């Protein structure tokens, strides 16, 4: 039987590095949108318990053993890299809808503050925080881990996001070279 070959949204692009900044694609196996049905919040909490995760306050994410839950809206979160089956929530497979980009290195916040209208300095947007916000003209989910920014953008626009971040990296690097 023939096999369909899977491709990531940014396949074919190599990581970009400018000075100590680097941009790369993160291959996510699975993203599930989890939205509890009316009155099912407790049942959902129960279903999430085996993963060691609880439904979140806005603008944050939590991670346990490689499984991440990130707030994406009112009564809605994305569960990343885990399988959940429960009748308590509307579950929508989003695995292929998003590209995940990782930006790390000194000045990463400066780079992203050229594209996001958000205060991303560490004292304001700390590790563990997340935001649904526009990356320039694109919808996105932004997360800050201990070491990097990770962001989700729509698959079809991933190359634009990549190019815009890479250009901002170039500008930041050129300024630092002065």
């Amino acid at each position, binding site marked *: 039987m023939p096999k369909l070959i899977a491709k990531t949204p940014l396949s074919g692009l190599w990581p970009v590095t400018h000075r100590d900044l680097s941009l790369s694609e993160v291959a996510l196996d699975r993203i599930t949108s989890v939205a509890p049905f009316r009155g099912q919040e407790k049942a959902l909490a129960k279903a999430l318990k085996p993963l060691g995760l609880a439904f979140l306050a806005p603008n944050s994410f939590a991670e346990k053993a490689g499984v991440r839950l990130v707030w994406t809206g009112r009564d809605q979160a994305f569960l990343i890299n885990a399988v959940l089956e429960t009748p308590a929530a509307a579950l929508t497979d989003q695995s292929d*809808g998003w590209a995940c980009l990782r930006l790390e290195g000194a000045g990463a916040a400066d780079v992203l503050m050229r594209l996001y209208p958000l205060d991303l300095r560490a004292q304001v947007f700390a590790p563990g925080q997340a935001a649904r916000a526009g990356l320039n003209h694109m919808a996105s989910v932004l997360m800050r881990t201990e070491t990097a920014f990770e962001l989700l953008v729509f698959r079809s626009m991933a190359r634009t996001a990549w190019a815009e971040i890479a250009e901002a990296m170039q500008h930041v690097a050129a300024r630092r070279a002065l």
Partner: protein
Amino acid sequence: MRIAGKGLTDPSVPVGFRFDGRDYVGQAGDTLASALLANGVKLVGRSFKYHRPRGVLTAGSEEPNALVEVLEEGGQRTPNVRATVQELYPGLAARSQNRFPTLGFDLLALNDLAAPLLGAGFYYKTFMWPRHFWEGLYEPLIRRAAGLGSLSRQHDAAAYEKAYAFCDLLVIGAGPAGLVAALEAGRAGADVILADEDARMGGRLLSETLVLEGRPGMEWVTSVLAELESLPNVRLMPRTTVTGAYDHGTYGALERVGLHLAPRPYLPRECFWRIVAKQAILAAGALERPVAFENNDRPGIMLASAVRSYLNRYGVAPGRRVTVFTNNEEARRTARDLMAAGVPVAAIIDARPHASAVEDCPVYTGATVINTRGRKGLSHITVRHGGGEALIETDCLAISGGWNPTLHLTCHRNGRPLWNEALAAFVPAPGAVPGLEPAGAAAGIMSTAACLASGQRAARGALEALGRKPAAIRLPAAEDAPYVIQALWQVPHAPGLWRRAWLDFANDVTVKDVKLAAQENFVSVEHMKRYTTQGMAPDQGKNSNVAALAVLADATGRSVAETGVTTFRPPYTPVSIAAMGAGGRGTGFAPQRFLTSHTASVERGAPMIEAGLWYRAGYFPRPGEADWRTACDREVRMVRERAGVCDVSTLGKIDIQGADAGRFLDFVYANTFSTLPVGRVRYGLMLRDDGHVMDDGTAARLADGHFVMTTTTAAAGQVMRHLDFVQQAFCADWDLRLMSVTEAWAQFAVAGPRARALLASVLDAPPDLPFMGCAPVLVHGVKGRLFRISFSGEEGYEIAVPARYGEALFRDLLARAEVLGGGPYGMEALNVLRIEKGFLTHAELHGRTTAFDLGLGRMISAGKDCIGKAASQRPGLTGPEREQLVGLRPQTEAPLTAGAHLFVPGEEVGRAQDQGYTTSVCYSPTLGSWLALGFLKNGRARQGEVIRVVDHLRAVDVLCEVCDPVFYDREGEKLRA
């Protein structure tokens, strides 16, 4: 002339540059203006209207005269650059502008001779006859004479950027008040941004010989800056002009990132900042203003503060024999500084009768300058004093009419400044911009000591608002002389056709012009401004507005306060379009959305066409095909006879789950969905609230409480927004969850008589779907979905797989289709197929059409309410007057065009006779004819009639038969096969 030992420039670093084709040498730290003055170049520009020779007037961004073009290799250039702001860098090349052929010999200076005819608003009174001479002769001449610098017409390929910044406190201006404010807040731990327009922070302290704490002011500046730099919570932004105050603490700012350097790759020329500040302090200082007297515009006449800047900061003496003309005490420092530096001062002319005369030079009190001489450079001034007149030889006249607080930002949110009689100036109105507190000279506080205290006070206010404790820094001791001024706006001159005293140097507006405006009853300040163009030049009246108001007040017998003031609007200084539009160039203007089939399509030579933000294949050319039509016709036949594959993933897809999902669809669609069985798909018509058609699409019921809706590509975003609104506003307590899944699925239409066979080869267990059925499937082992729907009129399916497999499935489907004599088809064929079938796109659903117009009126279910139902029943939206969807088939083989209008044969062709228009046309290879869809008045009742299709623009005039919009397989037998 450079004065050894003076100034902050570095004599050890010579910097070569070029102006008007001549090479010069300046020093590191120079501006183009200071370097030109150091080289004895006084004539740097020509005025806007009269082409009068002009020299440097100021030492800042408010410069009205010294505007030049900065040249780059390759022919790119930047016009209207202020020589007073442009920092010198090795190899800088600049040239003068608005002159022909040269700066020294400018033919347009003839305008100066015609000046009596060219007074305010003269052009409103003439150039009216004969009528067509305006566009043909007068206007081109005026256009060519007007304008300042010139664009190169080359695309601006340089790097620019935009960025956001956030802070507790934004301090605008790094003079004494700003430095103190930043230090107070910085030490208190607040998150501070200190932005200053200059390359070097310090404000007037860089240009004055002031003493702070017993030491030169510069030493204090250096120590404060060193401390600020050491504070992690303080960010210094030199070369950054805060250009606008917007809502809710948002400020626009322009940073000159690379303009002080020769261009280098990737380094942005400029950055446009969006700064969000909880609190802000406006410590932008004040701008000195000239006095209007006859011929006050000659090269060599300079603001007194600018003379001090060139002397003290740049070590340049702007003249060999300087005179000073002032109406205030402060400007007399100019003479003292010059003499201390060894530059001869010919005289001080102080307009105040009781002024002192302590300087070691002639001092005329109660005196005025009444005229000057020297066409390309000042040579003499005439002084009137105590009843006599004196002619004084001088090559530089330093003038001061007092100071205007730099309050522009406080007007950006419609605040009106207040007149302060003691200062003879406008001062900021309290609270004009919430959260922005003026301090120092910007608040009308003039002595250095008071400015320092004011900066501290403002910072403490901001800290309190931020809930922080003050740091209580100790202020240095500084001069605290009172600001003594006697208002002097204009020195009257004798009548005479060519006698003029300038107010607005940049736009060549004179006292006469303002008086003429008043004479003609343009007495509102706005009328005067607009009639004379006073204040509308590149300096936006920074040098002249207040004096012009005073002249208008005088001419109309009102006080300045009664006369009012025009509005300062953003930006404070001009902002390049490239900086504010950074990122927009080329494809950056909007995101590009790529399909998973993109690469495979490009490999097959398909032109990729923009469809909204998406790129879709137009057609898939085969070798030997002459044009798109050949390929398109083949693809149509291929679908009708074999099987075609088309990527339709751009359609919006919305996942709708919950017990109330069916009920919700009943509400947002005109027709009913709650009765749709699981495993079935239904066509849906969605109305706007106002009763017109918003969109159409399908919804499939995957499970009892689970639907997936499709929208058109164009309306996907609008529909999602709409559904969210309906849900949150009207159905908030329903059990319902919406989620866009457009991006998650790659979806391909597989259509044609062989479609089923093609699918059977990729599906692990092909289901036997009825028309409008759907089912989960395994596609080579991958979980997918299959819908039996058709936009082509053939037996058709749409097969969806997770997008990661999209490319692989597309390639696989194409390879298998080709074995069956089929292949891919693109947008062009898709369009022909759907026109043949009378299916709709946004060419027909253009926002003005109703269900009635489309012949779908019966889809609006009578048994339930839905969005748009009530409004759709307005009398104007139904009836025979409406243009209704019809098909049109030409009686000849002539081609048709979309956008043509419809007329009754034999009737006149005119607006009153217009019967409708065509929306979509194609050549149908299936039917061997051109076809059109269109809207015709009362069209459904007119089938069989002959109608005339007229397209004036493309010379089409064809008779067509009106027919049913479904041209092909009207009974739908193929669909249901």
